[in-house]
C-alpha cells in the first residue's frame, strides 16, 4: 500500500505559487544547459557530417590544416597518375588539386567583417563531394573569375547573391551560383576554379589534393602507406572524414562552458527545490501524523515526499525543454581554430539532449527532496499530530 500519486499532485497545485517559482527556476537551468549543449552539438555535427569516407586528403608533411599546407605542381602531377586512384568514364583521375585561401568579407548587416574560406577546386572537385548540390544559378566555369557560394554565405555576407560581385585584392569575383552543402563544413565556403584562385592570389602551389582510391584494388591503409613512403613526395595522407573529425575540438570550450554552468546552476536550483520541500514538510506536519496513524509506514512517507520533489523537478524539466525547443535550427557562426575562418552551423537539439536535460532535472529534484523527505519520515507520530 503506497500513498497515491494524486495526493502529491494536489499538494503541488495547492501551493501553486511556490511550485511555479521552483519549477521555473529548474526550467531555466535545464533550458540554459540544453541551449549551450545544442550549440556544441550543432558545431560537432557540422564537422562530423563533412567528408566522404571513400576520399583521402593529401597535405604537406607536418601540416595540420589545409589552409597552411603546400603541395607543389610537380607533386600534383605525380599524385594524379598514381596507381589505385579511381577514374571517371572519360578516364580522368578522380583527384582534385585544391587551394584554400582565407579572405576577409563584409557581413551583410554591415556589422564588421569576418574571415571566409575560398576553396579553389579542380574539375572533379564537385564529383568527389556528393552532398553538395548547386541549387540556384549554375556552377562556375573554369578559366573565368566566377564563383559559387554556399547558401549560408549568401545569407550572411554582403555582395554574395547570384549576379553580384565582390572584390578581394585586385580581383573581382562574380557570383554565378549558390550551393547547398547539406549542413557540412562546406556550408561556410566559397568555391572557385583552383587555377583561377592560384592566379588571383598569386600562389605558385596548391594546398591539398582530394583523391578517391579505387575501391577494390588495395586497402586504403596500404595506399596511404605507399604514398607517404614515396621518396618523391613529402606528403601526409589521411581519410577526409578524419581530417574533419579532428576539427570537432572547436566545440570543446563550449562544452566546458555548458558543463560548468549546468553543474553550478543546478546546485542553486536544488537548493531552491530543497527550500520548497522543507516548507511543504513543515506545512503538512499534521497530515504526516495522520497518514502514519492510518497505517502508512515511514518509508511510504519518505518515498512520497521524494516523489513529490522529483515530480516538481520533472515538470520544471519539461518546461525547460519546451523553452529551449524554438532554438533548434537557428543558424549561428563561430571561428574555427584550425582555419581561422568563420564556420556556420545550427543549434541542434536532439532527443538525446532533451533526455539529458530531463536527467538533470531528475537529479536536481532527487537531491532537493532527499533531506526534507528524511525529515518528514523521521517525525514522531504523536508530536506530528499535536503540531498546529
Amino acid at each position, binding site marked *: 500500500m503506497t500513498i497515491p500519486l494524486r495526493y502529491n499532485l494536489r499538494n503541488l497545485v495547492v501551493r501553486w*505559487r*511556490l511550485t511555479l*517559482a*521552483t519549477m*521555473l*527556476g529548474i526550467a*531555466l*537551468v535545464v*533550458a*540554459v544547459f540544453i541551449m*549551450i549543449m545544442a*550549440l556544441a552539438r550543432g558545431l560537432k555535427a557540422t564537422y562530423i557530417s563533412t567528408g566522404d569516407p571513400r576520399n583521402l586528403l593529401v597535405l*604537406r608533411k*607536418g*601540416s*595540420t*590544416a589545409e*589552409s*597552411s599546407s*603546400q603541395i607543389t605542381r610537380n607533386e600534383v602531377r605525380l599524385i594524379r597518375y598514381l596507381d589505385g586512384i579511381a577514374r571517371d568514364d572519360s578516364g580522368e583521375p578522380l583527384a582534385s588539386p585544391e587551394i584554400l*585561401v*582565407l*579572405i*576577409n568579407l563584409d557581413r551583410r548587416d554591415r*556589422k*564588421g*567583417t*569576418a*574571415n571566409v574560406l575560398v576553396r579553389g577546386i579542380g574539375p572533379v572537385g564537385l564529383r568527389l563531394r556528393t552532398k553538395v548540390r548547386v541549387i540556384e544559378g549554375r556552377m562556375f566555369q573554369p578559366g573565368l573569375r566566377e564563383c559559387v557560394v554556399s547558401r549560408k554565405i549568401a545569407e550572411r555576407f554582403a555582395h554574395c547573391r547570384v549576379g553580384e560581385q565582390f572584390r*578581394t*585584392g*585586385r580581383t573581382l569575383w562574380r557570383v554565378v551560383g549558390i550551393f547547398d552543402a547539406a549542413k557540412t563544413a562546406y556550408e561556410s565556403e566559397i568555391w572557385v576554379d583552383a587555377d583561377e584562385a592560384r592566379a588571383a*592570389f*598569386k600562389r605558385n602551389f596548391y594546398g591539398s589534393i582530394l583523391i578517391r582510391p579505387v575501391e577494390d584494388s588495395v586497402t586504403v591503409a596500404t595506399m596511404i602507406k605507399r604514398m607517404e613512403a614515396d621518396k618523391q613526395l613529402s606528403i601526409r595522407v589521411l581519410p577526409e572524414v578524419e581530417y574533419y573529425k579532428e576539427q570537432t575540438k572547436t566545440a*570543446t*570550450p563550449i562544452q566546458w562552458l555548458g558543463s560548468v*554552468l549546468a553543474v*553550478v*546552476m543546478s*546546485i*542553486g*536550483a536544488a*537548493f*531552491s527545490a*530543497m*527550500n*520548497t520541500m*522543507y*516548507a511543504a514538510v513543515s*506545512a503538512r506536519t499534521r497530515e504526516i501524523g495522520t497518514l502514519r496513524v492510518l497505517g502508512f509506514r515511514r518509508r511510504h512517507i519518505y518515498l512520497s515526499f521524494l516523489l513529490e520533489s522529483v515530480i516538481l523537478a520533472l515538470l520544471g524539466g519539461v518546461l525547460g525543454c519546451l523553452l529551449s525547443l524554438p532554438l533548434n535550427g537557428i543558424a*549561428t*557562426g*563561430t*571561428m574555427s581554430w584550425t582555419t*581561422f575562418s*568563420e564556420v556556420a552551423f545550427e543549434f541542434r537539439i536532439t532527443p538525446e539532449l532533451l533526455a539529458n536535460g530531463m536527467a538533470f532535472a531528475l537529479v536536481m529534484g532527487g537531491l532537493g527532496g532527499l533531506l526534507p523527505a528524511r525529515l518528514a519520515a523521521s517525525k514522531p507520530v504523536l508530536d506530528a499530530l499535536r503540531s*498546529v
Partner: protein
Amino acid sequence: MTIPGFVLRNAFRNKRRLVLTVLSVALSLFLFTLLQTALRELTQPAQTEESALRIVVRHKVSLGNVLPVKHQARIERIPGVRTCMKLTWFGGIYKDPKDFFPQFAVDADKIADIFAEARFDPQEVADFQKDRAGCIVGIKTMERFGWKVGDRITLQGTIWPCNPELTIRGVYRGGIDETNLFFHHEYMDELCGKLGLCGTFWIRADNTDVIPSLIERIDATFANTDAETKTETERAFVLEFVSMIGNVKLLIGSICSVIVFTMILVTASTMSMAIRERSREIAILKAIGFDGWQIFGLLLAESFGLAMVGGFLGCFGAWFGTWALFQHVNITTISNGMFIKFEVTPHIVVSGLLIAIVLGLVSCIAPAWSSVRMSVVAGLKELD
C-alpha cells in the same frame, strides 16, 4: 529589544531556509561574476598607454595572406612611424599539438620598443639580439614547461616549412600576454629559403594624434600594388578576432539574465514564505502601534540583508576563488589560450553587489506589501 536585533531574530527564525537561500544567491552571483569576467576578457582587450600607440598592418585580402618584406622600408619612411617591426605567426608544434603556445618571428632589435609595456632584462635582450637562433619567452610559458634560460627547444613548422632549433636567451614579464615566444625573423627566413615574406607589420607611432592619418597614409602607399594593406589600431585588430568567435555578448548576456531572473524567483519565493507565516505577528505589531511603513521597512531590511550576505559571499568568493586557483594552475593552459588573465575587476564585483541590492528590494516588495495592507483582524485570524 532593538530594531536591528528584532530584524536579525526574524531572519534566523528558520535557519535552514536562510542558509539555503543565502547560498543560492551566493552561487548565482558567483556565476554572474565569472561570466562577466569572461565577457570582459573576450570583448575588451586590455588597453594600456603603450598599446594605444600600436597599429597593425596586414594584407588587405585577409590575415591568411602574407606581405612582401619590402613594404617595411617604405613604411619606415612615413613620418610619424617610430618603429616598424615584422611579426609573423609561426604556429609551430612543440613536442605535441596539445602543447600549444603562440610563437612569432620578429625583428629582434625592435621587440623591446614595440612591446614596451613588457618588462625585459636589458642584458637578456642583448643576448637575444646577438644569437640569431635565440628566442625570448613569456614567463607563463617558461613556467608551464619548466624551461630555464639557456635551454634548447625545437619547433616543428606547420605553416612554414622549417623546424627552427632555438636557444632561450631571455624571459619577459608583464605586458598584454605572457605566453608568447619571439624569435629572429632572419633565422626563419634563412631556414625557409629567403621567401621575403612576413605576416604583419607592427608599428609604434610617435604619438596617438598621428594615428588616424598614419593609417590612411600607409594604406594609400600600397593601394593598387600587388599586396594592398589594411592598417588598423591594435584594439581594432584584436576585436576583429573576437567578433569571429561569435556573438559572445549575446550568449553570455542571456545566460546572465537567466541567472539573475532565477535568483530573483528563488529569493522572492523564500521571502513570501517567510512573510506569510508571520501574518499574525505583523497584525500584532500593527495592533501595538507600528504603522505600515515601519513594518514594511523591517521586512525590507531582512530581505536586503539576506541578499547582501549572499552577494558578498558570491562576488568576493569569485574574486578570491579565481585568485587562489591561479596560484596553482595556469588559466591560459586550461582554457587553451582563450583566456590570458581572467581578472575579476572591482567594477564587476560592484555590479554584482548592485544586483544583490536590487534583488533585496524587489524580492520582498510584493509579499511585504500585501501583508502590510492586510487588516489587523484578518491577520490575527491567519492560522500559520
